[in-house]
């Protein structure tokens, strides 16, 4: 069986890719996509830990992923609605155009 470390290292790499996307892209929707990748990496961690844990019968890791997917869906919906309302005002989803508040 593939060692646990491989999964964890892979999840860490995916998390970093998502973080890079979230920090470096300038389009709000792409930032949101980066955040989804980070959440997915965390989910993979949970499942890998669950699979390799001595108390796997308790299904704790799986339950966490189930809830995290639900939360991510709700969060994405709210985020996209906020992006729509931004678009109404600024006619753009580029973050550099959204800079009224400063100081």
């Amino acid at each position, binding site marked *: 069986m593939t060692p646990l470390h491989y999964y964890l290292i892979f999840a860490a790499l995916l998390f970093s890719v998502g973080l890079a996307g979230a920090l470096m892209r300038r389009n709000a929707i792409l930032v949101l996509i980066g955040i989804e990748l*980070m959440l997915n990496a*965390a989910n993979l961690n*949970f499942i890998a830990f669950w699979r390799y844990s001595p108390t796997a019968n308790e299904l704790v890791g799986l339950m966490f992923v189930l*809830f995290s997917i639900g939360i991510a869906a709700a969060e994405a919906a709210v985020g996209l609605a*906020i992006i729509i*309302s931004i678009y109404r005002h*600024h006619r753009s989803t580029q973050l550099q155009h959204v800079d009224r*508040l400063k100081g």
Partner: protein
Amino acid sequence: MNYMELLGALAPEAIVVLTALVALAVDLLVLRQAPQNARQVVAVSITAVGILAAIIALSVAAPSPPWMDGLLINHSTTAFLKQTLLVLALVAGILSIQSRFTQHTGEYVTLLLLSTVGMMLLVSSDNLLLMFVALELTSLPLYVLTAFNKESPSSSEASLKYFLIGSLSAACLLFGISLLYGLSGGITWTQLATTLRAGSEPIVYLALILTLIGFAFKVAAAPFHLWAPDVYQGAPTPVAAFIASGSKIASFYMFARIFMAALPGTAGSAAWSGATPGWVPLVAALAVVSMILGNVAAIAQRSVKRLLAYSAIGHAGYALLAILSNTEQGMGSLLYYVVTYAVTAMGAFAVVNVIERDVQAPNGESLTDFAGLSRRSPLLSLCLLVFVLSLAGIPPLAGFFGKFYIFIATAQSGTSQGLIWLVMLAIGTSAISLYYYLQILKQVYVVESVGQPTPVQLRPAESACIVAMACTVLILGCAPNWLINRFSPNSTEVRRAGVITKPSTTLELAAEIHPRITAPLGTATGLVQKRPQFETTTANAQ
């Protein structure tokens, strides 16, 4: 697992959820065509009834039975915190009457109440899953509420920043939680506390850092504060007030709980000489950056809401000191501090709300809008004086005792006063903060207003709230014992998870400094010893 018992333990939360649904249904089904003002009054009245019922339910609620450990914890401290949260939510509701930021009163009240439910569950949660779900239930309605003023571009901009930074840090938190779960094999505080130890494994610190990022965002500690000034300025003022008060209480309590109760083995030390790795030095770094950045950046602000935001960052720095003291005394001082701070901040925002309505500035108020306020409304300026001086930490107001307890708890906690340097820094930055707080008061009391001073329009419910909050700040300052007594004996969370706290040598020091301080701490220790179930742990500690 007994469903009825679970419902009984969660009756207050259930009442608040029901209230939210009723308010939404009444507003959308019955009052569709009614005038805006009537809808607001009805919605807030329903809220008031529901919140009152929930507060009563909380005051008669029994502590949670042992089988709920690992899921929920209810005791008198959580009940008091929840009552405070409910009162703050009610005030945020009352402040929104007659404000023109939205037509959708039903939705406003619903989201406000559901966010409060999230905070109440956050205060009670006893495992990582419930904590994460409750944290999201707290945050999501606040993101939407921030964008509530659909005519204002700043409102949606603030919301976008709040949302993006918030979900970024939530993703970091979730990754940190996944590592904590993997390292300990469980998600309850007890499982975490018994398995996680600071060792040579860097992965433990990684998990700590990621978890810390999530909470540092929630409490607006620098350098994760970037959303705070924009949200405070762009959000509708009642919403900003609720974010600054209610969300702070719940997040700080959970912040302290997870690190003190669940991760005691990985604390480390932040002593000036001989720091060891762990979460304490990380929190110390956050506290130092927050205190300096918050208080220095506040000086340059022209908008009072932005100024309050930077001052909130500074205050978060002081509150972090209480967390890193990592003692039961620190927990008590933290709760006293955040509760009094929340009431004060809510009061200050309430005054700003009145002024904002009065000047009708489209992009929020500025410092000069407060010019000559003492002529225009002596009552309002007196209340603002109380709030601002309490934020600055002037005795005998509540803010002074909050800082005082925290500084004592911090100075006491490290071995051989190793944390004194942090206290020194905190006192220094408090002195800086006096400058910008006095700037506000200078506008109110010294500078003349432009043109003829016209009296400020105040509504009875609103002014009653403001005066009540000012009185609370004053009374809590004159009689801090009442509040600190509520927290000291009952911050048993730390003990339940098997943490051994240091013996309290504070009593002697406190007695030298201020005879009145001794009383609460003395009774606290006394109460602890009266309770049989804690005798063993107390004995261990000494």
